[in-house]
């Protein structure tokens, strides 16, 4: 029985363990067709191994950038390629003030706030009884396992970015971080203005945003 191309390629590429490799070599002994096919995979690999890597004039600038970062402290302890929603949001608005404190919705807002936080999936919004327009941006867990939700809340024309967390399933969500935003009016905020948020997320060991499935599971138990 003839040995298939994929197996021959794996042999040529050293991807078989010693026993498998011996078995295939035995199987193709005297099989000139299979040996020719094996040879094609070996020779294509050899041809490619000699390919020079392209260099570029821009490399010097990149090397300088890399050297400059050596010895610098890591900006964030956690991997996070998905912090873009925050950055995009903050980039379009001027940060007016950074106030850490409890956000107390007006009469009638508090219960619907808790309901909205425990039910609304990320990317969706809800209107609270006091008229506050709430959008959930993302959910994540801290190093300690606390569930946190990043929200944007607009009330009377003022927009607030908050991180609301609950330490246990039964506990209410509490505001742990807040930042007030107003639409930019001919003024671009400095790039460092979300540093406070980044620092806060780093301090609590914020993980990557939860997937929709993980978020649904976290909200239901």
């Amino acid at each position, binding site marked *: 029985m003839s040995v298939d191309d994929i197996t021959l*390629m794996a042999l040529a590429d050293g991807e078989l363990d010693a026993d498998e490799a011996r078995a295939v070599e035995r199987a193709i002994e005297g099989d000139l067709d299979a040996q020719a096919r094996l040879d094609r995979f070996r*020779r*294509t690999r050899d041809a490619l191994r*000699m*390919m020079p890597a392209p*260099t570029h004039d821009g490399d010097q600038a990149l090397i300088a*950038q*890399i050297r400059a970062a*050596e010895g610098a402290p890591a900006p964030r302890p956690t991997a996070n390629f998905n912090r873009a929603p925050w950055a995009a949001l903050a980039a379009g608005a001027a940060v007016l003030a950074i106030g850490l404190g409890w956000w107390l919705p007006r009469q009638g807002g508090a219960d619907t706030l808790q309901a909205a936080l425990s039910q609304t999936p990320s990317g969706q919004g809800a209107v609270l009884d006091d008229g506050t327009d709430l959008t959930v941006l993302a959910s994540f867990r801290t190093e300690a396992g606390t569930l946190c939700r990043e929200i944007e809340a607009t009330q009377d024309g003022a927009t607030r970015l908050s991180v609301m967390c609950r330490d246990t399933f039964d506990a209410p969500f509490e505001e742990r971080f807040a930042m007030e935003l107003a639409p930019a009016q001919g003024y671009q905020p400095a790039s460092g203005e979300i540093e406070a948020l980044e620092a806060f997320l780093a301090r609590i060991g914020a993980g990557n945003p939860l997937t929709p499935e993980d978020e649904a599971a976290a909200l239901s138990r």
Partner: protein
Amino acid sequence: MDKAFGDALVRLLPNLRRYALSLSRQPDVAQDLVQVTVERAIRNAASRDPAQRLEPWLFRITRNAFIDMTRRHRTEGARIDITENPDILSTDGVAAIESRLMLQATEAAIARLPREQAEVLTLVCIEGLSYAETAEVLDLPKGTVMSRLSRARLALADALGIN
């Protein structure tokens, strides 16, 4: 970020560019991808699992950057034959005219492959990643990597007259 990481990143710049070229097929886009890869690598150096080899980690960043870019621009970009842009081909260490011609023929043959075949070929045969590492970079089952790679190798053998 420590010096060893910086050294490794500098050493791998040409490899990152080659992979970026196999993705974008446009030298200027490839350069942007390498730039983004370096920035993200520096930013996330501390979060890398030191048990994992650096190459697959970096290639994955490059690939994600490419996906971000194509999503943003919604453009495929014109495919170009990189042999028509000799400035992106290094001549280092290639003395004999014969091997130079072979390299050019190989470059041209890779450029004619479908992008997904060129990509696995680059990662496995040029960059030396294992099938498992390649599957991880591409977010594909290992079996898919192997079937794409085998098709790419046979097409390359035909193009180069390797019988």
